[in-house]
């Protein structure tokens, strides 16, 4: 029994042993993928539906590849071409998918908790591929795998997550996973982008890049969504300009120099070059593992699919 329950809705509730075994399995899939072989028996005759209510290229493609490499029939249901845009509710969609006997449902939605709601109503195993500001568990797993491959461990590493923590599901899944695996997690950003009560999860909060990056093993930059700068219904943007943001919080070579000399630079993508990360840093092969994150994404998703399949369908 590797995963509690039949779904993967978040990192919350996964214990370190489960996380380690998922990472171990993902590691073996990473090697298999590099060898060019596949294991099409794992999900043979199973149907995986990618149900994406939000645009995504990277995550959807990654799940599609992972499913296909394990032998599943993969169907993509982007929202813009489905009946959801004609007013069908989330639960109508769930009923439809049930009627189609879908086995695995990969869901991305703009609202926190939407995959949890679907999981109550569908027979399929549900994988959260990002819900609102809540969680993005496979991203955290692939980040952890990437770090572990370079450092050989997670325990006692200093990991710094930079930028828009408040609106980031990647940040939540990451600090949950990394703190439970023994990392020291720091978050850094302007106070308007740091969510309430985050210290309660074993994270230290910084507002200055120099102190935040001091001695860091890993520096993760988060995408700054441009709508955060626009005036919203509460009367103002959360930051005044991209220029000011980059000056104080953008990851450039000078700020990166505060970290350990061999620090890893990560980004969940897609990047805003010149906003949260400078091109010199993103493309610096001595530090940047951003492309490897994408590669590990496929391996991690294969491991998650394999694990859920064992749990739900009783495959070997």
């Amino acid at each position: 029994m590797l995963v509690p329950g039949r779904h993967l809705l978040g990192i919350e509730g996964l214990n370190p042993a489960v996380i380690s075994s998922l990472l171990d399995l993902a590691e073996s899939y990473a090697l298999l993928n590099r060898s060019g072989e596949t294991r099409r028996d794992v999900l043979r005759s199973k149907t995986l539906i990618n149900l994406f209510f939000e645009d995504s290229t990277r995550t959807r493609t990654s799940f599609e590849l992972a499913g296909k490499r394990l032998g599943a029939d993969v169907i993509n249901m982007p929202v813009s071409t489905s009946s959801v845009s004609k007013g069908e509710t989330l639960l109508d969609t769930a009923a439809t998918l049930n009627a189609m006997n879908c086995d695995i449902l990969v869901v991305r939605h703009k609202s926190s908790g939407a995959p949890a709601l679907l999981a109550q109503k569908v027979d399929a195993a549900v994988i959260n591929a990002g819900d609102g500001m809540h969680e993005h568990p496979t991203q955290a797993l692939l980040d952890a795998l990437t770090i572990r491959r370079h450092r050989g461990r997670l325990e006692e590493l200093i990991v710094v997550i930079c930028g828009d923590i408040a609106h980031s599901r990647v940040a939540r899944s990451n600090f949950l996973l990394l703190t439970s695996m023994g990392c020291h997690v720091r978050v850094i950003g302007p106070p308007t982008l740091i969510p309430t009560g985050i210290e309660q999860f074993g994270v230290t909060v910084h507002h200055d890049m120099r102190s935040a990056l001091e001695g860091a093993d890993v520096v993760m930059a988060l995408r700054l969504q441009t709508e955060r700068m626009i005036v919203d219904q509460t009367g103002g943007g959360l930051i005044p300009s991209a220029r000011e943001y980059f000056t104080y919080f953008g990851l450039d070579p000078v700020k990166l120099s505060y970290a350990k000399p061999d620090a890893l630079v990560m980004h969940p993508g897609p990047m805003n070059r010149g906003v949260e990360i400078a091109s010199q840093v993103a493309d610096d092969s001595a530090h940047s593992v951003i492309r490897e994150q994408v590669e590990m994404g496929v391996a991690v998703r294969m491991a998650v699919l394999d694990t859920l399949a064992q749990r739900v369908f009783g495959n070997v």
Partner: protein
Amino acid sequence: MFDPPRDTLITGARIVDPATGYDEVGDLLIKAGKILDFGGSFGEPEGSTIIDASGMVLCPGLVDLRASLGEPGFEYRETIESAALAASAGGITTVAVLPDNAPATDDAALVRALASAGDATGRINILPYGAATRGCVGKTIAEYGLLREAGAIAFTDGTRAIGSAALMRRALSYARGFGAVIVQHPEEPSLAGGAATESARATLMGLPGIPACAEAMLVERDLRLVELTGGMVHFAHVSTGAALDLIRQAKARGINVTCDTAPPYFDLNETAIGDFRTYAKLSPPLRMEEDRVAVVAGLADGTIDAIVSDHQPRDADDKRLPFAEAAPGASGLATLLAITLAKVHGGELSMMAALALLTTRPGSLFGLDTGRIGKGRPADLCLFAPERAWLIQSGSLPGKAQNTPFDGRAVEGIVIGTWKAGRRVFG
């Protein structure tokens, strides 16, 4: 239209009338829809239905000062008829109804229509609130004089705060001329865009937060406006300790302020929204445990004047949505008494204090005179078995609205009978 009320003798009940502090075991005699006499023993008067109420509590019919009944405009959620059934099952005989329907209660004819619709059920008195602003949209004050004459008990924009300080000042000031109270949903609107109380839990769930101070801010502002205008304010469903502290201090200074709260705020805290349970999504949101404790303290020390159902009917389509998109609000009529009694069983409130918060105290706000037992008064009564247990279950509650945050909760205290003007309407 209805059967005439039967003459009834309720025997051996613990009769509790918070208005006078009366608490004795005895009989109560209903004749021609009124309370003929109570206390002691009246034998077996000829032609009377006799009800053995030994071991039960007989109190005034509950007075609920805050409910939305779905009509007009939201009949898919609840109708006055279905809400009246739920009210009767909850021991409630008087319901003050919020004005933010479609259309809003901003016209004298609508006030009269609502009151008549209550009478037509034979189960409840409806006391309509008038709109504080036309259409309850917070632009211009409504016709308080005409609305009051038609029977509006006070003025409010219902589930919406009167956000503009200038408008609130005008409302308090103008209402004062008619001796009317402004009822405020105390929540600073520009901070109220979230889905849950702002906290580490909301952060973890990825839900936009509403800071608890949004309540105290509007309370503080409005208290100052009351001092400025000499008007009267009532704060609805107060949910935070900070707001209660302000109200407590204001009362001590002699300011014209009263307030109420609803069972979720003294019985539940923010943990109830775990697993994205949208039935526990309320407005104001469920707060931290220390605020829940502060609300209990506010009930116990008298700072809070009334417990209301805050009945906000929602149907499945309003609630079976991702949390942030789901409509806030809880069904409350049928569970008002039982959740309040949980505080009596828990030793936090006396039976007398709890029943006062449900009957006499709300029944004397806004210049009302109801919620008491007295000779010659209409026989609006609630008889309940204080220790009998039942299970609150969404799906089997009386009335249409099944959106209870107390689903699955075992409670003690069940209504055995409800009388409206001498007619037995429940049990």
